[in-house]
């Protein structure tokens, strides 16, 4: 895994390193949130409702007097969780269908790729909205639905990798040795096609975090009192005339997080793709 051109390219890309660093930091914060010396994100304080940012409440308080700073910190746990699980689902489906299409070709390929075309033609956000609203809105539903509507890119990537890899000598010789289809797919081709999938996954996490925040903002995502960046923004909108801090800080958190994942993902893409290496 640790090839020297890869690391050289990464070292020359300070933005990607910065993104990676912030991603790690966000991870640490999310995991350690219960241990941090911050207020309880659920504790209601009737005496401190809608207070602007101060030393005691760096991001102010919301309509129930809860500390917005700790709600934003706890919101990062939701975002990471949704990001990873939904991308995991998308990768699983995309890899499965993509390898079938690429390996078997012919009508299997035709059928799967037409299905991909149809899925890509949907205004995805409409579909997500329709499904989520008909189900009970919950974090599990969100993760499932973001995953189920986000696998098409991965499917195309994996298929393309399979198409070129299956003609290569090492696959042909495995076949000549009588290795079964399943084993060829899983042990020989798949491991060689995972690099672009990894990059797509990191960029996908960023997209999933954005979608989750939009859904929670519309009130059909993570439900209060569980803090998520999107639903804090909803109360920001409801109190737009009086409390700017409810709108500003959660959005900044989304921006920084998504930006970091994108920088890391793009950096990895350049570092892993010999054609792009040194092109910057």
């Amino acid at each position, binding site marked *: 895994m640790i090839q020297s051109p890869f690391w050289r390219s990464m070292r020359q890309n300070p*933005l990607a390193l910065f993104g990676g660093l912030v991603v790690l930091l966000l991870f640490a914060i999310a995991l350690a949130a219960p241990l941090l010396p911050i207020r309880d994100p659920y504790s209601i304080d009737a005496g401190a409702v809608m207070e602007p940012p101060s030393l005691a409440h760096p991001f102010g308080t919301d309509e129930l007097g809860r500390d917005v700073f700790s709600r934003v910190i706890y919101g990062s746990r939701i975002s990471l969780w949704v990001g990873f699980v939904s991308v995991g689902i998308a990768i699983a489906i995309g890899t499965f269908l993509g390898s079938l299409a690429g390996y078997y070709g012919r009508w299997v390929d035709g059928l799967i790729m*037409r*299905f991909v*075309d*149809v*899925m890509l*033609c*949907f*205004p*995805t*956000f*409409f*579909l997500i*909205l*329709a*499904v989520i*609203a*008909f*189900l009970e809105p919950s974090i599990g539903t969100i993760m499932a639905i973001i995953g189920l509507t986000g696998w098409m890119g991965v499917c195309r990537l994996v298929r393309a990798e399979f198409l070129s890899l299956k003609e290569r000598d090492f696959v042909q010789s495995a076949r000549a040795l009588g290795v079964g289809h399943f084993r060829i797919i899983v042990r020989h081709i798949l491991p060689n096609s995972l690099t672009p999938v990894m990059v797509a996954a990191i960029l996908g996490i*960023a997209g999933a975090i*954005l979608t989750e*925040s*939009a859904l929670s*903002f*519309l009130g059909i995502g993570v439900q209060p009192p569980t803090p998520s960046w999107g639903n804090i*923004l909803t109360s*920001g*909108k409801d109190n*737009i*005339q009086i409390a*700017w801090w409810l*709108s*500003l800080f*959660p*959005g900044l958190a*989304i*921006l920084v997080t*998504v*930006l970091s994942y*994108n*920088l890391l993902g793009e950096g990895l893409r350049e570092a892993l793709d010999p054609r792009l290496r040194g092109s910057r």
Partner: protein
Amino acid sequence: MFNYLVRRFLALIPLFFGITLISFVVIHLAPGSPIDVLADLNPKMTAEAKQRLVSYYGLDKPLHERYSQWLRRFVSLDFGVSFSPDRRPVMAKIKEALPITILINALSLLLIMVVAIPIGAYSAARPYSAFDKSLTLFVYIGFAIPTFWLALLALILFSVQLEWLPISGLKSLDYARLSLPGKVWDTVSHLILPVLLSAFGGLAGLSRYMRGSMLEVMRQEYITAARSKGLSEREVVYKHALRNALLPVVTILGLSVPGLIGGSVIFEQIFAIPGMGRLFYSGVMSRDYPLVMGILTIGAFLTLVGNLLADISYAVVDPRIRRGGQR
């Protein structure tokens, strides 16, 4: 040319039916029914009354029968009657909302093109210049920024703090009493923020795409040839390169339609604009099957029209496609 377009058009038809079929199945398989929503509102409803409603709406028939019934009606552009208390035809509701959404999206698409194409071309003509680097930065931020958040910030700044622009809706309360210029300004001022903000997301994407396409073209041999002919750099870039670089960008524009439609849900919710997005949101919330199904169909239709327009404009600007047929 004609053959090419007919072929592209025919390819869209199965796609369209695939989309409506998936929408139909997804919506109807989801648990919870509109009758439950009605029953929640009216706890005195008897089991009998419920049953009557179920058969009235045809909810007791098997799924494939309902879909074929829906299809038969759809052919005559009849999406049925909305489940909501006003019992109006879905088509009438869509007719009110659609022009508003199309207007806003068309304006923002126009804005995207007018701004993104020159920016992308300019920065590709001077790669790694200060301008190009700030474009890259802008693109990264544009991709990462939740546009609904940006909308909130813009509202706080321009509508709450500065009070320059109205906070929501399409018309002021005193619209009827305004003079003509007053009316025009009223509409414009209500549209500024929604249009600017829904353009923002696409702006980053398209300028980056334009830059990439332009860089690709600048590497071609005919550009070297044009340069060696002694043409000025200006002519090389803006006459020879730009035209060819626009080709793939045209396609992307057509493909960006689903994103714009999806985004309208959020923007119309934030700015309280009575368009398709808001209609869809309310339909989804009240489990109004015919309405949701109707809007999904129209959305799919618009997407396919976007695809087709992309194909057509591609064929218009690129003679290779017109003659060769296959892409």
